[in-house]
């Protein structure tokens, strides 16, 4: 006799909830997305590839938030339309990993 172990999936927003950040002012956002370019995007690969769900389609439009970014760099290479500009966050800002 055994008991099947069921492990719950954790919603991405709850997983991001354990991550620590110091969020910079929006005018210094380390990633900028020219969403006018996104209107013509044939694939929206950013929405599938970003592991932190920073890119979402809402009301038929691409919406980007920089605050949850965990700084992997995937969006910059996923976007082949020239819409994403990626920089490192300024000095103390961005994700602060505890484990790594």
């Amino acid at each position: 006799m055994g008991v099947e172990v069921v492990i719950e999936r954790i919603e991405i927003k709850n997983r991001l909830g354990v991550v620590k950040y110091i969020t910079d002012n929006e005018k210094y956002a380390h990633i900028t997305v020219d969403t006018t370019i996104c209107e013509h995007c044939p694939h929206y690969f950013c929405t599938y590839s970003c592991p932190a769900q920073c890119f979402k389609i809402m009301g038929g439009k691409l919406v980007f938030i920089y605050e949850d970014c965990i700084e992997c760099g995937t969006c910059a290479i996923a976007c082949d339309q020239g819409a994403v500009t990626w920089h490192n966050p300024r000095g103390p800002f961005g994700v602060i990993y505890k484990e790594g």
Partner: protein
Amino acid sequence: MYSADFDVIVVGGGPAGVSAAIPLAKSGMNVLLVDRAEQKGTKSVSGGVLWGNDLEKIILDWNKEAPIERKIIAKRIGMLTETDQFTMDYRTKQWENMNVGYSVLRVKFDSWLLKKAEESGVFVINGSPIEKLAWNNGRVTGIIESGEVTTANSVIVADGANSRIVLNEKFGGVNIKGKTEYPIENMALGIKEVYKLDEKTINDRFNITYPYGVASEYLLGFLKNGVMGGGFLYTNKESISLGVVINLPSLKKGKLYSYDIIEDYKTHPFIAPLIEGGSLVEYSAHLIPEGGPTGVPKLAGNGYLVVGDAASLCYSNGVVIQGMNYAIRSGMVAAETLINAKKNNWVDKSFQEYIYRLKENHLLEDIEMLSHVDRFSWNERLHHTYPYLITDILNNFIGEHGNPKKHIRTIVKEARKKQGISNLTLMRDMLSWGWRL
């Protein structure tokens, strides 16, 4: 020759940068290391196994002092379908007395490395993201931060897989719609979750005793829409690093959400019991350079060298994934190169010696091999057909299903037909496994 602020500036305080900085400082050079994390190590991520013992050449008895999690004495390589698992479990007493690999958590580990660098005389500055180099007459003369130049006779670029310097200086990457970027074919996406569990539970579940640990890697045959990915599980002292490595071109075609794939893996019936009861303490992600020789940027030029992940010096064939050891080795080779360059009064051609020294140390050979293994590790059949073929064969060969016994040849033939694999394809794949791996 102008008078520079430093002999060497190292950009990036991971294993590559530190492994370059320590020998340089010990040789008497004036070394500045700048890292983007304000608190040491807090931007560093990796899957979690440091293979090899290369650090011994830089820090004597490093493994007695470093914050390592567990010594790896067993490796499990397998494939998972929705319902089946096939695993090779290799374990040896020999590894208990060898330095084959260690699981590490990079925040602690890198912060220790940086402290060792400071003890060796490296001047470390934290919280400084550097994205541009300073140039004069076709030669790198330092780094630029907020428009200000800090000068050096040489710069080591060690800012990791997502190197901004390599792109901004056009040492690597390709032009996509006016922007220099890494092609998705040259990078895999790693996503990791760390689960806290007590030491004894980990020991029991993985059949090991601390300080020993296990590294497990699986092909995720159950992923839908042709998406290719691998899953890993590394035992730490009191946590488990669980993660996936995703092939980006197949993700683009298959349209799965990357953050769902890691949950698919975690909740697999044979993985879930291993982390049951654990609490999630971290969620992280990192790009893994794996373009093989095509991903390698310009490694050396007048006044600069590129090391570690920034140089795409990373080895992954689907079964073996190694990055930190190459980072350390390339850092050491960069240090040797610059020690000699200083003796030659920093003449331009002395920087090119780095390439020869990398070859001498077999680093480029290993990367060169990846042009062959690529076909193997991100092979659609390997990920989505063979896990089913092999588990089907085993099910019929090992199990008792109340039917008349069949010869193994018949079982293989039937399984092969079910998966639509011709004899010729099977033979070709087997050969390419054998020869290319």
